[in-house]
Structures are given as structure tokens and as C-alpha cells.
């Protein structure tokens, strides 16, 4: 990823900012100009709750370049309460604790570092609902 690309997508990465289609009222993430559901123009920014459930998941042993220090790590497709699916890492959870359907919430975490001198890349991840776990 390039530095301008990280900057352009900072709101989506840091806070899961999506869109709501003004025509069909569906939530869209990641944002795009044409609503994938009804085909109408969709440009109204809308925040998402960050709550959802695990649709599927995997424990990655062979990491792509830049992610080796974190392996093995969990990745998932999460179904957000508002409807969209989103692909992200899971954090604060052990592989044996994850299951399909598990409620999760968005947190902003470090995704990787571009070496000791480069950019630190932050972005959304998901973890088990804190309240459900501890209160």
C-alpha cells in the first residue's frame, strides 16, 4: 500500500466509515460511488456500529510480506449488524475460542509496520464483544 492510498482511506480504515444509499437505504461498506444493491449513486457517508457476527474465519500460518511478525493470526469475514460483510483480522481472541456466529465488535489496532523506519499502519479489526465477555 502506498502512503497516499493509506491517507485516502483513513476514515474507512480507522473508524469503519461507510455509506448509506439514499435510494434503497442500505448500508454500504467499503464506500463506493454506485450502490451495489440498487445501482443508484451512493455518496452519503454513514458510520457503522462496528457490531456484527463472525460469518467465517481462518487462522493464517503463511502470512503475506509485512505480516510475518504477527503470524499465526486470525482473519474473518464479519457480518455487520447493518448488513454488509467486511473482511478483517480478529484480535484479543484465541483460535479455539472463535466460532461462526460469534458476536464481535470493531476496534482500531496496528495492522503492521513498514519496517522500523516506515509508516505504522492502523486499521479496523474485530474482537469478541467485551461486555458479553466480562460483565
Amino acid at each position, binding site marked *: 500500500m502506498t502512503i497516499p*492510498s493509506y491517507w485516502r482511506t483513513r476514515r474507512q480504515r480507522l473508524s469503519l466509515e461507510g455509506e448509506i444509499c439514499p435510494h434503497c437505504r442500505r448500508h454500504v461498506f*467499503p464506500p463506493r460511488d454506485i450502490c451495489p444493491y440498487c445501482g443508484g449513486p451512493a455518496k452519503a457517508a454513514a458510520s457503522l456500529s462496528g457490531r456484527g457476527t463472525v460469518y467465517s474465519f*481462518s487462522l493464517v500460518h*503463511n502470512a503475506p510480506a509485512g505480516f510475518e511478525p504477527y503470524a499465526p493470526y486470525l482473519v474473518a469475514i464479519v457480518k455487520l449488524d447493518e448488513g*454488509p460483510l467486511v473482511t478483517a483480522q480478529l484480535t484479543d481472541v484465541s483460535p479455539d475460542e472463535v466460532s461462526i456466529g460469534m458476536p464481535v465488535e470493531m476496534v482500531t489496532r496496528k495492522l503492521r509496520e513498514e519496517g522500523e523506519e516506515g509508516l505504522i499502519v492502523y*486499521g479496523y479489526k474485530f474482537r469478541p464483544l467485551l461486555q458479553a465477555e466480562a460483565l
Partner: protein
Amino acid sequence: MRDVAILGLGQTPVGEHWDLSLRDLGAQAIVSALKDAGIEAPQLLVVGNMLSGSLSHQENLGALLADYAGLRGIEALKVEAACASGAMAVRMAYLAVAGGMVDIAVACGVEKMTDGSSEETTTALAAAADDLFESDQGISFVALNAMLMRRYMHEFGYRREDFAEFAVNAHRNAARNPNAMFRRPITPQAFAEAKMIATPISLLDSAGIGDGAAALVLGPMDLARRLGGAVIRIAASASATDSVALHDRRDPLEVRAIYLSAQRAYAQAGVGPQDIDLFELHDAFTIMSALSLEGAGFAPRGGGVRLALEGEIGLEGRIPISTMGGLKARGHPVGATGVYQIVEAALQLRGQAGENQIPNCRLAMTQNIGGSGANVVTHILERLA
């Protein structure tokens, strides 16, 4: 539109070709296909390739391979559709000949994968996924397929071991294909115990990547008849797209592009799945075999694995797949794979598949999948008497 035939074919073995570069591999396949066809002067070369820019720092493959294959001067270009680049190159050559603008076209799929480190190759392959919202999250291409597999197991009640037959069948067939990369049979137990790459996908769910090139010479039907020998007609060439990102699909287990490209191919050929004698599908992962069988109409939703468990995918089965080893065991030189599939299907129709020959086959289907089902190219080949 005019009918198009396969006039010639060529391939290099798939493997770790430490002594051969990208251009050597491509040129060998092209020269060998032209020799097979008995043709010296094609007008068009279409190269299918995905990774030359990222792994070999080489683009402009059309001109490069034309030059190294002794074809300097002809029209040439590269097409890219991730892992479906090979079949897409064949389709572009097909369109040129079918449309009448070109009489003889060569389609060559080539990939050189062993010059990069394992991490570099994993990263380059991840470019088939959505860079901003999949790859940037640390999601490898294997991980995307792993999540499909886990969801599939969850929805349809399968265990990981139930996928073993896809890999066992592929290795059994590869053992008898001199061009295959993994020429040794494996057991269901080895499958069960294989090392995990991204759970639940292990090394033995995944196609091994390797270097390789394959090529086809296409021309009009009347020329094929004049040249003599078995005439292989391209009865259908069709492709379709879906979202690149899995998360943008309403039901990730129903790969729309697999269904659409198969339906378009059946309509063009005027046949249905019941007429197909063998199916070279895109078994980059065992889960893709299941989804491909389902999307192309050979099994109902959730029934692809059942078909394998019932022994229907072997050479004697209802729908033989991966008859020369498939991506799994012939090896998966990514952008070349789609051309290998068609070369192998053509060999079956010519009766030149050796120990893996399927008797009396007339109709063969191939399906090449780019990304996690984002770009799918389906061909149906017919042997004319």
C-alpha cells in the same frame, strides 16, 4: 462469426525450472504448439500472465515472447485476469479468429513463480484479491478460500476429511502425466495430517505453484479440416465476472460468475452438464472444486463434496475432473493454468491422454477462475469425427 478449431498445442512440464526464465518457458510452448499445428506464420499472439510484473519485473510480454518465439513483427499483447489469465488469453484469440479479423492466432499462458521468495509470491498472488479491503488487512489468497471452505463445512455439515478425494484423485492422475509437477499418489490419511496454511486449508488442499507455459494455435474450421487429423472445435467460449472482494457478495458460497459463465457456455454450445464427458475445473483449492461442480450444474448447492465422496469424479466416474492432475497436482503456474486445462482437454479429445485417457469422449469442458470467483472463463471443446 465463424467456427474456431484448435490447430495445435504445446506445453512445458510444470515444476521448478531453475534453468529457464519467463521468456524461455513462453517461447518453448509457442514453438512447440506451432510445430504441432504445422504452421509457421500466425498473425496474432495473446499472452496470458498474471505475475510477470511483480515477480520478474517484466511487462510487455506480447512483444517479448513474439520476439523470442521467432515471431517478431506480429501483433501481440498480454491479457490479465488473475488466475484466469490463461483461459482469457485463449478467449481473446478465439474472438479474433471467430470474428474473422485474424486467421491464425496463438494463445500462450506463461508464469514464472520460483524467482521470488515464498512471502513475495504470497503477496503477489494476493493481488488477485481486493487490495484495499482484503489484502491490506493481511488476508492471503489462501485465507479467503479457507473462509469459504469453513463456511461451506458449517452450512452443509462436512468435515475437512470429506474434501480428501479431490486431492487424492488429482494426485492419482498426475502420477501418470509426464508434464505434472507432483507425480506421486497421496492417501486420505496424508491429506488429514497435512500441514495447515490457513485453517482449514492445508498444503494438500492447495494447488502447488510452479513454473510453466502452455500454448494453443487457433484457426478457422475449414483450415483445421485441410490440415487433417482429429478436429477439435471450440464449441463455446464464455466468461463472466463477480465482485473481486468476497465480502461484496450476497452469498459468498454461490459464486455467480461460475454459474453465469457455465450457463453462457452451455447456451452457446447447445448442450447441458449431462452431455459433458470430462471437466477440467479450477481446483486451486479443494473448496473451489466443490463450488465449481455446483455452479456449473454437476451437483446441487452443497453437493459438490458429496459427488467426490461418491466416487463420481474419477476417470471412470460420472464427471471426471482434473484428469491430468488438475491445478492441485499437475501444478498451478497461475497465468498459464487456463491454457494447460484446454491443452489437456484437447489431448483427451484427441485420444492422446495416455494412461489417463477417458474412452470415447466427445465433449470436454474447462473452467478457469480468477480471484475467488471474480473472473471465470469457461470453454467447451468438441471432437468432430
